[in-house]
């Protein structure tokens, strides 16, 4: 941190000259320095230190304890379930996202803005409520509960419930990434392909897909990060059965509540690495995408 601050006075020479003739266009150097320091101090307290704390706590008892906490059977089963959940939820929402974006971007119809608002709905629902709705549907006292019990199908407190809740929570990610992107691209290229005799699928595969692939990837990594990290919704529907219905975030909670801090932070550090990888990939895509209007993307990352 202090390193960042001490290297501050590398302002452009022009700025230095402006400073001498007191100007209302640039703040004096000490103000700039103070504002930067205050911003970085705030970010340190609320961002950098929590991130560092995850790894520091995870490695507090050394590498061996760290590794053994990760290869412990319950942790491994949580990792497997998390991967499985994401492997189902992300492709489902990917197909939906592409369909919805094609529908909204390529055609004109009434009620379009309502449809876009409805697609965004899961973002404005508290995670706990996202879980509760599936309890109301599939729980013992729920609408489908008695029928499911009769046919011995388990959805709640089992893997299907976890997957469903995750699909709900991550529902808008890919769609809301693709809709503005495909809307800005218009329909001319696709129409040309169709007129030249390409089938619908060929048009999508060879014309649309190359144009949207980075936006698609962007949506997929954000969707994946949320699918693997979702806690509230999954916690309500999972039933917390060790080794069976615990995803990684739930495993973190259980270990933490058992005061097994080192193990909790060890599993948490894997999720933190996932988050860092997500941010790195996201920055890479934004950097590649810099030619296209970037501000659009920025707001899309709203979870």
């Amino acid at each position, binding site marked *: 941190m202090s390193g960042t601050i001490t290297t501050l006075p590398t*302002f*452009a020479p022009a700025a230095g000259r402006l400073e001498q003739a007191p100007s*209302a*266009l*640039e703040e004096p150097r000490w103000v*700039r320095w103070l504002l*930067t320091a*205050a*911003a970085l101090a*705030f*970010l340190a307290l609320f*961002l950098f*230190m*929590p*991130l560092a*704390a995850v790894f520091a706590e995870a490695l507090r008892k050394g590498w061996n304890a760290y590794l053994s906490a990760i290869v412990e059977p319950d942790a491994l089963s949580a990792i497997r379930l998390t991967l499985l959940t994401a492997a189902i939820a992300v492709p489902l929402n990917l197909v939906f996202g592409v369909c*919805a974006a094609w*529908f909204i971007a*390529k*055609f004109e119809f009434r009620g379009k803005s309502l449809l876009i608002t*409805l*697609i*965004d709905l899961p973002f*404005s*629902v*508290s*995670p*706990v*409520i996202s879980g*509760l*709705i599936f*309890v109301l549907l599939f*729980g013992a006292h729920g609408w489908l509960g008695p029928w499911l019990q009769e046919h011995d199908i388990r959805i709640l407190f089992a893997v299907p419930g976890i997957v469903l809740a995750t699909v*709900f929570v991550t529902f808008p990610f890919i769609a809301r990434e693709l809709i503005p992107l495909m809307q800005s691209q218009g*329909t001319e290229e696709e*129409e040309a392909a*169709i*007129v030249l005799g390409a*089938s*619908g699928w060929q*048009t*999508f595969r060879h014309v649309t897909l190359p144009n949207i692939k980075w936006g698609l990837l962007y949506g997929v990594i954000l969707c994946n990060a949320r699918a693997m*990290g*979702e*806690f509230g919704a999954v916690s*309500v529907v999972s039933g917390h059965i060790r080794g069976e219905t615990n995803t990684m975030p*739930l495993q*973190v909670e259980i270990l*933490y509540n058992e005061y097994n*801090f080192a193990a909790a932070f060890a599993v*948490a550090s894997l999720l*933190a690495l*996932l988050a*860092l990888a997500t*941010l790195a990939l*996201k*920055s890479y895509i934004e950097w590649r995408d810099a030619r296209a209007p970037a*501000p659009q993307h920025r707001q899309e*990352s*709203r979870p």
Partner: protein
Amino acid sequence: MQIALPFSFRDRHPGRVLPGFGLTGGFTLFYLCLIVLIPLSAIFLNTFTMSWEGFVKATTSERVMASYRLSFGAALIAAALNVVFGTLVAWVLERYEFTGKKLVDALVDLPFALPTAVAGIALTALYAPNGWIGSQLESLGLKVAFTPLGVVVAMTFIGLPFVVRTVQPVLQEADREFEEAAASLGANRLQVFLRVILPAILPALLTGFALAFARASGEYGSVIFIAGNMPMVSEITPLLIVTQLEQYDYAGATAIAMVMLLTAFIMLLAINLLQAWTRRRGLAEA
């Protein structure tokens, strides 16, 4: 909701060249109903089976009211903190140069990417009386973890990117000519900021505030570890829903969920209006 068949629509829109209207539209509506609308309607329909007295009793008991005060009050404070510091961060990232700026810019999105449970235990470890920050504050007589103050800290973390990411593009696109004009007319830097820059970023600022508030008021994972969860003191509303579910009080949980859902919808409406305002402002200036 009716699912459209391709041919019936093609007749009505003979000019439509691209295929897939029926297929993509049908699937979009089907999947939206199946995953989002039908499950969400469960809350509404379950609430309607309750009597009005029962609903009022479940949503206004003393413990529930205390949880609203905490959830919405702390979310309000956290969102206000994020307005101040989020603007500061956005300003520094857009207008100044410093080493590591790109890295800092990328890390601002961390609260979006980091699972909430991880954020929760990390903040608790940090702000607990024996933590790096908590021990310092302890010597000043300030307790953060396991008090309502801890709730504010977690909510500030979770809402941090919203204000930064809504204000940043506006600052980026803002025309420096207005600032130059104000300066040449004799305004000092503070006056330029208050009279020229602040009005320009105000809609974005309000949008960011609303987004941060909406997110924080429903937040669960990052808050429950640091809150201490004492009924009447540091128990947030989402946790109360979970507690009632665990006691098989489905009606009570649904009623509280309904109140939260309605608040969320009002917030969503406000955010949409604010964003429309921001867009109009942007167009008018361009």
